[in-house]
């Protein structure tokens, strides 16, 4: 009947299993898909990323101005765009989007 008692005492002695997020943030894993970022100097605005995006989160225009826009609320962070980018100007930042 008292099978969990030992565990209760162990927990009283051990450290917290949780962190005081957002004051204490865990270091992201290397290679984690946190958020999508672009290097606009390399981008040729070909629009392949926008065409392949499963969530239609990316919009690319060439005329009148060259623009690349990401809707972060639509992005599903799958990194498919990173894979198909011919110039490799897209990359995933392991750090997640924070409260802004």
């Amino acid at each position: 009947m008292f099978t969990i008692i030992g565990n209760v005492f162990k927990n009283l002695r051990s450290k917290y299993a949780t962190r005081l997020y957002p004051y204490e943030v865990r270091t992201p894993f290397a290679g984690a898909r946190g958020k999508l970022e672009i290097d606009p100097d390399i981008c040729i605005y070909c629009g392949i990323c926008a065409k392949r995006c499963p969530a239609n989160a990316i919009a690319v225009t060439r005329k009148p101005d060259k623009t690349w826009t990401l809707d972060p609320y639509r992005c599903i962070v799958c990194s498919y765009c990173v894979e198909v980018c011919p110039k490799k100007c897209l990359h995933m930042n392991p750090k997640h989007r924070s409260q802004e």
Partner: protein
Amino acid sequence: MAKNTIIPFGPQHPVLPEPIQLRLVLDEERVVSAIPVVGYVHRGLEKLAEQKDFLQDTYLIERICGICSFIHSLTYSMGIESMMGLTPPPRAQYLRVIWSELHRMHSHLLATGLLADSFGFENLFMQLWRTREHIMDAMEATTGARVLLGTCCIGGVRKDVSEELLKSVLQTLVTVEKELDEHMPVLLNDYSVKQRLCGVGILDKQVAYERGAVGPTARASGIAMDLRTQGYAAYGELDVEPMVETDGDCYARTKVRVRELYQSLNIIRQAIGKIPSGSINVPFKTKPDGEVISRAEQPRGEVLYYLKGNGTDMLERLRVRTPTFANIPPVLAMLAGCELADVGVIVISIDPCISCTER
């Protein structure tokens, strides 16, 4: 004879993680029958999949379920691969097994945790979910995401895992096994837990068979049915046996999950021990054409995909039969004749995933 009363159980209920309504026909405190009402989280994913190309669908399909996401994309990929005549490289097959089994472990820990919560054992619930975090971390380290791994693709997998990371997964398994050894005797041997689970929600083997039960629900009723024994991905080269119990009650279903947790530990260790080196995917230029039925064993049971391609980028039809959909008729049989207070435990004992069911 007293007049029967109908009371709604759900769609919002402290015990239910997801919305399903069961209209319980009661005679005093005893349930006479239950009428299920589904449709609260229907998202039209099957229709949406027909409007995206088959490569984009891999990511969409994964979002059918937030627990067994990888196995959804795996089953879909296996279907498309068989339509296009592709054979993924052996390393990809082994990685698929490793991620599938990590998913099974985190799903079973989640399910047993929720079961503990459903009968009021919150301490055990939190202990099990704390153990689950180790597995979530292992998945994030190896794939880059906690749940929606996004690593399965047509022709193999998208991401290779280095030897160091595979070793770290083995280290994680040691920690998880140590914690399981601590918590599982509580779940299986505690007097009050047994009082709530033993003899509750009994599903007879014949009824389970007739009503089409799948997964741990069927195995707990004595049906030795586990699709992994058919040898898809790399399961054919690993030692996999269905975990069968014969009592058919909530305790037996829990016991099946506990035994499968240890089995998954064993399978991952076997897979990491045998994983060959080499490429992780095969290139292709063809489009899916024809019809195929693809099946795989999810933590909750067998998932079935019907795919129909017409030689273009878009699929003509995609149909998903998820395990919870198959397990709803058996749970109605379990509920007939039970006490009202046991309804929550019985429903949670099949590990329902309503978002999966309604797609």
